[in-house]
């Protein structure tokens, strides 16, 4: 909230993250809380200025209840956070029953993060979330190594990833974001396949599968092998994914990985992202997404050479290029 006098000088920073479904996922600021870092959102209610976030992505929700990975679940590594939480939660039915009524009362859109091992399960999850008041959109987590067979996130296989997206798309008209793994390789083909299968936007990226060992010979530092790296170390990797995906599709991209201040966020916007999700940094400073919104509004328009223009121009070469 700004003073009326200031409001006129501030740039409009709202973004439509699902332009194919106008108005369904119009976010006030391009700064989202990334999956897992603010739980179901309700934990920070009253303490975190959620109404000044663009949107909140919930903790990953699964079909069945899960108790999560054995401890320890976190380790500090150079420029990052290694985590293997293991998607603990009561399962989608209980999550929707407990929290959706509270989400409905908020002005900030809540994006439900869905996790499953099989492509078809994303259909079942989307079906349960479809039509539940309070759920603004879905994010299919195809990046998490927790449920992946042999630690291979679904998004490493464009066919499986497209199947998962299509299964969810068939079950709901809600806007669908799909989260890619930073370990994915054929990024342009993957992005095209996901959009073709019905993704409204792509989140680039989830955490990088990674490992830390006890140097004194005690084995892996974390209790589960499905560990992944987040934080500043991830940023250059995710930035490249954003840049690659932007070359392939014109759908909105949510950049995610290692953003802890406005310069980091501007990097993502410059690489072609339309919004930015804050993860690890929000653990230390839960109000960061709100503050970044204020800072960006005061910063003014963001130069995105060859990004925004390309998307809004007619496809004819050179047609709208300023002389």
């Amino acid at each position, binding site marked *: 909230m700004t003073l009326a006098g200031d409001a006129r000088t501030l740039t409009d920073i709202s973004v439509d993250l699902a332009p194919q479904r106008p108005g369904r996922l119009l976010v006030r600021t391009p700064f989202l809380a990334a999956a897992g870092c603010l739980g179901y959102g309700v934990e920070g209610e009253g303490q975190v200025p959620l109404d000044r976030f663009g949107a909140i992505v919930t903790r990953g929700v699964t079909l069945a209840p899960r108790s999560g990975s054995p401890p320890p*679940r*976190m*380790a500090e590594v150079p420029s990052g956070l290694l985590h293997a939480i293991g998607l603990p939660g009561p399962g989608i039915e209980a999550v929707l029953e407990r929290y959706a009524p509270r989400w409905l009362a908020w002005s900030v859109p809540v994006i439900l993060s869905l996790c499953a091992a099989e492509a078809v399960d994303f259909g079942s999850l989307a079906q349960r979330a479809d039509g539940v008041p309070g759920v603004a959109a879905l994010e299919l987590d195809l990046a998490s190594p927790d449920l992946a067979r042999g630690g291979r996130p679904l998004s490493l296989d464009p066919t499986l990833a497209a199947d998962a997206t299509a299964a969810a798309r068939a079950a709901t008209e809600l806007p669908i974001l799909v989260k890619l793994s930073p370990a994915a390789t054929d990024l342009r083909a993957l992005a095209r396949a996901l959009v073709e299968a019905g993704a409204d936007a792509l989140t680039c990226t989830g955490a990088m599968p990674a490992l830390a060992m006890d140097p004194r010979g005690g084995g892996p530092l974390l209790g589960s092998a499905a560990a992944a790296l987040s934080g500043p170390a991830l940023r250059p990797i995710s930035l490249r994914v954003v840049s690659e995906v932007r070359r392939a599709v014109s759908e909105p991209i949510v950049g995610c990985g290692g953003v802890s201040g406005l310069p980091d966020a501007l990097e993502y916007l410059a690489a072609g992202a339309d919004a930015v999700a804050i993860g690890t940094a929000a653990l230390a400073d839960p109000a960061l997404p709100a503050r970044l919104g204020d800072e960006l509004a005061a910063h003014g328009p963001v130069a995105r050479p060859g990004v925004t223009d390309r998307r809004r121009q007619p496809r004819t070469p050179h047609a709208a290029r300023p002389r």
Partner: protein
Amino acid sequence: MAIAGIDRKRGEVTLHLPSTDAATPWLAMRRAGDRADPIGPLGRPLAIEPRTHHLLLIAEGLSVPPLGPLTEAAIATGRRVALLLGARSAAEVYPSSLLPDELEYVVATQDGSLGHRGSVVDLVPAYEAWADQAVASGGPALLERVAHLARGRDARLGVACLGRRTARRGRRTGRVTRRSWLSVVLEQRVGCALGVCLGCVVPGASGPVRVCREGPAFRADELAWEESA
């Protein structure tokens, strides 16, 4: 990192930081007048049971500081306090100059260079009957052994029903909640420290518990010991 002392009159908090950590040197280099924006206090602190007269503290290595505020509070309210400390050698023994004079301080070193040669756990039985409340702070191996001793004590001496029995609630539900003799302070890396990220959970007696929210101080009977050590 631990809060080693609280001076409410002067509005001061003393922190002890390990210099081996990646981020704490930054904090250690702050000077008077520098600004920081901490969140806290968070979680559940250690508490002295109202009926406690003799408080036993058990610690090892660098795990003494978390017991500082409790020690000060116990001494200020006229309780007798004994601290049993284990360390690898005399060089790693917590300096007695940083501890209150009123404290009975007993040291065990692995190499015998100061005090008892061996583990600090060897010293506990001598104080078991004297103390009506015990608090342990240290690594999982130490806590596991002390918790095992505490279970044996409960079996031999019966659970001394210290502190407030939650009698009113007990009558309603038909059961009396008994406070266990031993409390422990867990050392654990926490992510958000607000109970949201679930990064710091340990197995509890009835399901996982968060060190940042339900802890870091736990009654020994709240934790599932077999699995956590």
